[in-house]
């Protein structure tokens, strides 16, 4: 059934329990069947929403509540906009769910479940079905954001080089006092290597490590035991990062320039 023309909030109240699984998603069978329809008819099907709506009505004759949500999203242009390559899917998901909520009067989690079902059906990098369980017990609607954040966090952690230290003996005269100097350097991705003197006793070239965009930083310790100063930093990662920076920032640029020439 299609509820698009109805007074919004009350019409959906009864969908609250039935159209979602406890995890906030539509039942796997519904999402999978929708995906099967798209696979069978191709993504072009959503360019003819009437035909697509007809198929949904027929295929989900036993799940009319879910069918109405899917058709509402379809009428609202959700699947069509999800396929817009200019906007990342996670951003689209949140935006479209909010729009369904506001314009169609859907309860927030129902709106999100409908959008997520379309994301899954269109195979747009979606989380697994319910059987595999949502990550960290959170709803599927949070998954893209969590993945993004997780990726950044991993990159940041690698960049911080907390775990992997490379010990470099400072060859120059040690500092006069015992000390332990933490330091952190921050830079931009393009500024991947800094050469310079660290102390008057060090005189060494130090790398600066790329971490994750948009900020890179290098963490480390300078240990001075009164006799010698030790510079502990993430040397191995520095080398790797320097290589990656060279490869992606400089070598490609040279190649581009060469092509243009």
């Amino acid at each position, binding site marked *: *059934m*299609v*509820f698009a*023309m*109805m*007074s919004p909030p*009350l*019409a959906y109240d009864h969908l609250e329990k039935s159209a979602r699984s406890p995890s906030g998603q539509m039942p796997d069978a519904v999402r999978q069947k929708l995906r099967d329809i798209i696979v069978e008819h191709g993504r072009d099907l959503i360019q003819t929403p*009437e*035909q697509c*709506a*007809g*198929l949904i*009505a*027929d*295929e989900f*004759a036993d799940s009319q509540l879910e069918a*109405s949500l899917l058709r509402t999203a379809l009428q609202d242009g959700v699947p069509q906009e999800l396929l817009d390559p200019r906007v990342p899917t996670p951003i689209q998901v949140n935006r479209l769910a909010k729009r369904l909520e506001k314009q169609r009067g859907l309860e927030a989690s129902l709106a999100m479940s409908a959008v997520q079902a379309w994301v899954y059906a269109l195979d747009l990098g979606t989380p697994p079905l319910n059987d595999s369980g949502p990550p960290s017990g959170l709803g599927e609607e949070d998954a893209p954001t969590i993945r993004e954040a997780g990726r950044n966090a991993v990159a940041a952690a690698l960049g911080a080089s907390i775990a992997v230290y490379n010990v470099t003996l400072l060859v120059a005269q040690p500092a006069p006092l015992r000390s332990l100097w933490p330091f952190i350097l921050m830079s931009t991705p393009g500024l991947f290597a800094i050469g310079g003197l660290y102390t008057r006793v060090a005189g060494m070239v130090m790398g600066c490590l790329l971490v994750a965009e948009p900020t890179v930083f290098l963490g480390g310790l300078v240990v001075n035991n009164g006799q010698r100063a030790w510079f502990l930093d993430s040397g191995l990662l520095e080398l790797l990062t320097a290589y990656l920076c060279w490869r992606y920032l400089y070598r490609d640029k040279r190649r581009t320039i060469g092509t243009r020439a």
Partner: protein
Amino acid sequence: MGSTGFPGGAMARRPLHFIWIVDCSRSMMGKKIQSLNAAIQQAIPEMRTAARSNPGVEVLVRAVAFSSGARWHIAEPTPLEDLDWPEVNADGHTDMGRALQLVAEALHALPGHGLPPVLVLVTDGQPTDNFKEGLDALRAEKWGEKAVRVSIAIGDDADRNVLRKFIGNAAVEPLDAFSSGALVELIRWVSTVVLGQAAGDLKLPEKTLAPPPATSMETADDDVWRAS
């Protein structure tokens, strides 16, 4: 002298082709298809009564059922006296375009003169195939274009725009059936009033259908086919 006692024998009866085009897709499953079957079965005696008031017309009934594809449910033009309605079952998609093509092929075979046929489309959904192709094929036929085209939309999901295109007459709206009671009422109206008009007026197709019965939403039926 023939058995009727008229000089020259029995009066020639002009055939009036009446074609049901019924949606048997999966979304019709349950009460809708049951109600449709019952409504048509109940309408047949009343059709016979209506036809008797036009003795010069012989009503011939056929039926197309469409779901995934389309097929003749009653293939031969059947006189009302012999008409029986075998029940249809629901499954598959809503290939309405294919059904219209099938009807177009049948109309193509009709003689060039006679009464315009009556086409009654009953559906609860949206076409899942190329509806436009089917409609174009139908309207390309002389009798397809001249036919009295009526449609009954069952429930909220039926695509009224598609049905308006089928009717092709801005003065005639699809008939809304939101309950089994309303469906029975509308089927009866189509089977009697529309049939009677078509039988009595050669120039009927142009904007002259009698107003349909007012089907009340306040029905005792427990199967109300609305979202709210």
